[in-house]
């Protein structure tokens, strides 16, 4: 008789654990759910692929420079003395656009997409404009931030 009661008590405790674990198992993901990864909106230094900052002077001299910011290809141009920065990733299929100084456009070599100096599409298949970044000159470096 005692053995039976002991068995019942043991199983009862086990069932209690089952319910407890179930509740905890539900609640942990639910709390984590409220804390999405941060989007990394912080400012980002414009640099070359090996991680060295690209100088303001080199952009001004050469008219344009393609480098990295926010972990992706980015292009900064000298537009009538003003620095403008865009994502260099074509919104069509992800090729890297280049700045055509003579025509004043960004040009994608893959399918002939063209963008104007505000990043808007003027020709070709790209569905969306190039995202533009805010430019802040810090000393000789270029700091970019997402708009």
């Amino acid at each position, binding site marked *: 008789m005692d053995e039976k009661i002991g068995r019942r008590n043991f*199983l*009862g405790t086990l*069932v209690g654990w*089952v319910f407890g674990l179930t509740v905890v198992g539900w609640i942990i993901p639910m709390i984590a759910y409220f804390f999405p990864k941060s989007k990394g909106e912080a400012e980002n230094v414009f640099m070359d692929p090996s991680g060295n900052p690209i100088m303001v002077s080199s952009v001004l001299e050469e008219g344009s420079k393609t480098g990295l910011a926010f972990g992706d290809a980015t292009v900064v141009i000298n537009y009538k003395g003003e620095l403008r920065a865009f994502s260099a990733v074509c919104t069509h*299929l*992800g090729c890297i656009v280049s700045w055509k100084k003579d025509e004043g456009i960004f040009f994608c070599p893959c399918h*002939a997409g063209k963008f104007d100096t505000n990043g808007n599409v003027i020709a070709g298949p790209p569905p969306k404009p190039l995202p533009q970044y805010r430019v802040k000159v810090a000393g000789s470096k270029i700091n970019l931030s997402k708009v």
Partner: protein
Amino acid sequence: MIVRGSIIIRYLIHFSFSLLLVFIPQVFAQEEESSCISCHREMGGDLAKPIELWHESIHKKNVISCHNCHGGNSKVQDMDAMNPEAGFVGSPKEEDVPKFCGKCHVAVMENYIKSPHWQTKKEKHPVCTTCHTAHHQQRATLELINEKDCSRCHTYERARKIRFVMEETEGSLVQLDERIEKLRGEGFNTQRLGDALFANRNEFHRLTHVLSVDLIIDRTETIRGDIKKVEKSVGSDEATIKRRKIGGAILIAFLFISAFIIHIYRKTLP
């Protein structure tokens, strides 16, 4: 009785199929057809052939239609659709083909005109359509370089070398492409990875149009570096999937064991 039953069933099946034919186009006939297609299909024969070919092409898959290359007014239902003033070009002369395709495939054309294929002094030289066909273009693979096609004009030797130096990089591009597609199937947002891979692939394929083994070897290293980056990202996502499956298996085991524990506990109650 049985015979009659089977006739009825056969009739029903036949009937349902014919209904299907009536019903489905009604639901799905949302896509608008250009006048190019409707006219040319009616004409039949050689004039209709390009439509069939195009239907199986990568251009169709990417919603590139007749007028995107041939120009003209694809909305007009008469001969004015083929007005040269609206930019209509029917069938370009052979020497104009690179320019014709180069409207969109700019960098490919730039590289191609540097190549012996274009530079050759011979009277007949291969253009885009010689290898890629005129309307049945497929997604480019290494299979385009093969003995049968290349030896239509010259020996395969040099082409074999080009194919050889491309093989490894091309192989990893193809393999990564499949892995990314699998990730997508699992619900991952693969837009960025897919784009990065496409850009690499495109750069690589563009480059090979120069037909220079040295150039390919020279640039392969940079491209492979970029591909490695994509590969790393894909690998970490695949690891995530694996971890989720293990977690899932544990959870499922817990639930079934719990059901069993509750079952035997219930049995001990008076």
